[in-house]
């Protein structure tokens, strides 16, 4: 049992940070929300815009606006990043009954968004995440988010493996996507990321449930005093 008794409500326009020590269930939460196989929900429900999220296949969730920025983005040899993005975007548009983007329109969109995130044309031509550095992978994830324009963004340890400059670029990219009709769940171990992506609410996850919620100052409190006190509470 990894998650147990977790209850969370995220409204449109809000940014929620979920903090917790290793093994508290942070990544499990992101995988359950995005529908990765190998996780069984024995009890409880997830309602997304009034619908049962857990009943949906991963691609249906994506088409309905759920986006997970992976902690460890998957490398897919042979599939060019550009092609991948185009197929994904048009599949989502088709599922939503929207018109598919033409290749020139798509190119314009991606180029504009890529430039802001410092993603080079060369990277776009390469296979998905193959041969990307840690920082490049994270930037590519945010680029996908910018192109696919989801309504629920789940960022799983997006700061891990980033140096301070890369962190700033990624955070700027994320902040640019903040909007009144978009919700975000930012999962992180450290408070550092939250200096750049300032959350509306901070939750502390321990042993599979939320043991404390509060404003952005809670993050600073955690940084100073550590997770130990909360783990005691959880036990």
């Amino acid at each position, binding site marked *: 049992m990894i998650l147990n008794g977790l209850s969370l409500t995220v409204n449109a326009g809000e940014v929620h940070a979920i903090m917790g020590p290793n093994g508290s269930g942070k990544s499990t939460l992101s995988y359950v929300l995005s529908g990765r196989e190998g996780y069984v929900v024995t009890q409880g429900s997830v309602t997304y815009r009034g619908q049962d999220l857990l009943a949906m296949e991963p691609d249906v969730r994506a088409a309905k606006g759920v*986006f997970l920025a992976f902690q460890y983005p998957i490398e897919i040899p042979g599939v060019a990043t550009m092609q991948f993005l185009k197929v994904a975007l048009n599949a989502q548009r088709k599922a939503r009954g929207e018109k598919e983007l033409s290749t020139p329109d798509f190119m314009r969109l991606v180029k504009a968004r890529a430039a802001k995130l410092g993603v080079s044309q060369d990277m776009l031509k390469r296979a998905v995440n193959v041969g990307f550095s840690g920082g490049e992978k994270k930037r590519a994830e945010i680029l996908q988010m910018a192109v696919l324009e989801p309504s629920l963004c789940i960022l799983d340890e997006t700061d891990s493996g980033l140096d301070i400059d890369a962190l700033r670029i990624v955070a700027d990219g994320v902040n640019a996507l903040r909007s009144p009709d978009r919700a975000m769940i930012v999962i992180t171990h450290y408070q550092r990321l939250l200096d750049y992506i300032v959350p509306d609410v901070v939750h502390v996850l321990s042993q599979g449930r939320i043991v404390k919620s509060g404003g952005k100052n809670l993050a600073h409190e955690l940084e100073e005093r550590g997770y130990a006190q909360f783990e005691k509470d959880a036990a």
Partner: protein
Amino acid sequence: MNIAVNLTPAELALGGMMLPHARMEDWRWTNLRTLIDRPYPPGGKIAVAAKEIARLRDTSPLARMPAARLVFVNGAFSQGESRFPASGEVGIRPGLPRLSASDEPVASLNANFATDGLTLTIRSGANIDTPIELLFLATDADPRTIATRVAVDIGAGASATLIETFAGEGSYLANSAVSIALGEGARLDRVTLERQAPGAIHLADRDVTLQGRAVLRDFTLTAGAKLNRQNARYTLAGEHADARIAGAYLLGGRQHADTRLVVRHAKPHCTSREIFKCVMDDHARGIFQGKVIVDPGAQKTDGKQSSHALLLSETAEFDAKPELEIFADDVVCGHGATSGDLDHNHLFYLRSRGIPEREAKAMLVAAFVEEAFETIGNDHIRAALGEIATGWLASRGGAS
């Protein structure tokens, strides 16, 4: 010791010629004695309307590509249907070329039953830009054996693009023997597209010799026929010859395909690369047997081989025998072989971005075979064949 053997109906129809069986090392996974379960007597002349031929020809994804086209219909070279190369530097001589003696079963089948063929020569130093396609068509008629033979001679320093396309309808056994000689410094881009009828049997034998500094790019797409066996021997007979040999299988239903490749480094300083990507769905069975031989004295050989299988259904099968036989010490040789199903992480990642499962699978299949397709030098051909790979999964319905 005298072993009495009861000939199978197929063997009787071939004049008592014994078919290879699983006790023969090279045929351990392809027992023709049991797999060929009905007779295919040598085929005679069959009259076919021009309209029929045109219809069959136009099903080829390469039909609209500008190319010289040498057309065989039911094993007979049809000059009327062919479009000869414009260049005077290409020579075409109809008639059966000589076949070097061999006890290899597919080659001896050809030695016994080939009815027609041609010899194609490219003059030394000539650069032939327009691809030359050999198109072998079989029409729907009684089950029969169709055997053809082609010899190709590329002169020193010459270059050309050669395509062999096999297509047809109905039930037949197609046997093809091709021998190719690349002169000093010659370059050949060669593509084989095997899209035989679903009820057909394809047994091909190929022999390629490269002289010094010759360059070969060779790609075979195996997609048709219920039973397919391709032998190919490549001899690097001159220093600094360079051969890149690739192939892809797209097999479904109960298709069975077996490729037996022998690459012989006879001289020093040669390079060879083999890359085979095999996709099997349903009950299909793919087999890859590749052998790299380095002769004594063939120092500084660089020979690498890889075969990778993607099994899309639990009942699909893959067998491989990647062999090395090395008699020189200053060499870098190796091979790799893998077999497995689709990577579930890849599939999930694509789906998490909104790509439906079927489409995601098709993308991953196309990505899987991509590396083999890179061997095709001609952009037009690569794109046309690439589309077959991309559309393959979708075109097959059933697959989930």
